[in-house]
């Protein structure tokens, strides 16, 4: 049952990423060129509505579908990891034209070269795990 729900959520997400063209390298390039509102509209409206959803859940102490209390853990305080990690991520996002969600959608759409990006992203994650104690966080 739960597996079906997760799969359904993923399918909805994959269709949204593909059909909104957020999974298109061109849309990412266009966003970083400030030539179109499209990507800003997607991210902006998602987070404005998301913020209202989070606020509402907190305010009314809404329980999950399974009756559990919902908590929103705060992100650890810090600067370096978010700033430098963010810049590194942004460089890759613009070059590959895909962030981790859309990568999976593109694979399903049949763009096989994205497999190179996914494998490299796993390798990049692995490299981080190996060197992370030497990095400022």
């Amino acid at each position, binding site marked *: 049952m739960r597996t079906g729900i997760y799969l359904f959520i993923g399918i909805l997400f994959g269709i949204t990423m593909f059909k909104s*063209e957020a999974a298109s390298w061109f849309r990412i390039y266009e966003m970083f060129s400030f030539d179109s509102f499209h990507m800003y509209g*997607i991210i902006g409206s998602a987070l404005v509505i998301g913020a209202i959803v989070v606020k509402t859940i907190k305010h009314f102490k809404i329980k999950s579908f399974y009756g559990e209390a919902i908590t929103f853990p705060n992100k650890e305080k810090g600067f370096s990891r978010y700033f430098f990690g963010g810049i*590194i991520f942004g460089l890759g996002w613009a070059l590959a034209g895909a962030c981790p969600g859309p990568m999976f959608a593109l694979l399903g759409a049949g763009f096989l070269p994205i497999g190179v990006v996914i494998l490299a992203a796993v390798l990049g994650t692995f490299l981080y795990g190996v060197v992370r104690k030497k990095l400022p966080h």
Partner: protein
Amino acid sequence: MNWIYEPWPWYIAGPMIAFIMFLLIMVDKTFGMSSNLRTACTICGGGKYSDFFKFDWKSQRWNLIVATGTVIGGYIGAHFLSKDLVVSITPDTIADLNTLGFASAGNAYLPTELFNAEIIKGTLINNHFIELRNILLLGIGGLLVGFGARYAGGCTSGHAISGLSNLQLPSLIAVIGFFMGGLLMVHLIFPMIF
């Protein structure tokens, strides 16, 4: 019924993403796709090389299922909900990309000059060089995404959507970093490599 094949405008896609985040919250989970990359490292035996990968990956099984669904969703979107795979970017962007050598701008979903292995596949001897260059560029792009996402503790879904929705300052710093990196790549590095 032709509307079903049209690309989705931002005011459908954005609320849909918020709805997806809401659904995940309501089943006691969080929205964050790059965590799957860490789980993949753990499954492949990464725990032998770093404690960072020593965790019970089965606790992340749900997220792998979401990722599997995302692959299926991409398939459905491309094969059943689209007639042509053309992304209508603005004329200004098309002109910029043409100057950089991307003739496929405005005619494709992804730049065939970078992604389409079939077009690249050895029609000319010097095309092998392009093929190698593309694998290298896509590989570097993926490497940066994977490394950066874990260093920053999240990607677009984890920080820009989940984190900012919860008004987290660290997520704002990360998103500012995402944009600095993206602008640097597109405006400074692209003219050098394309």
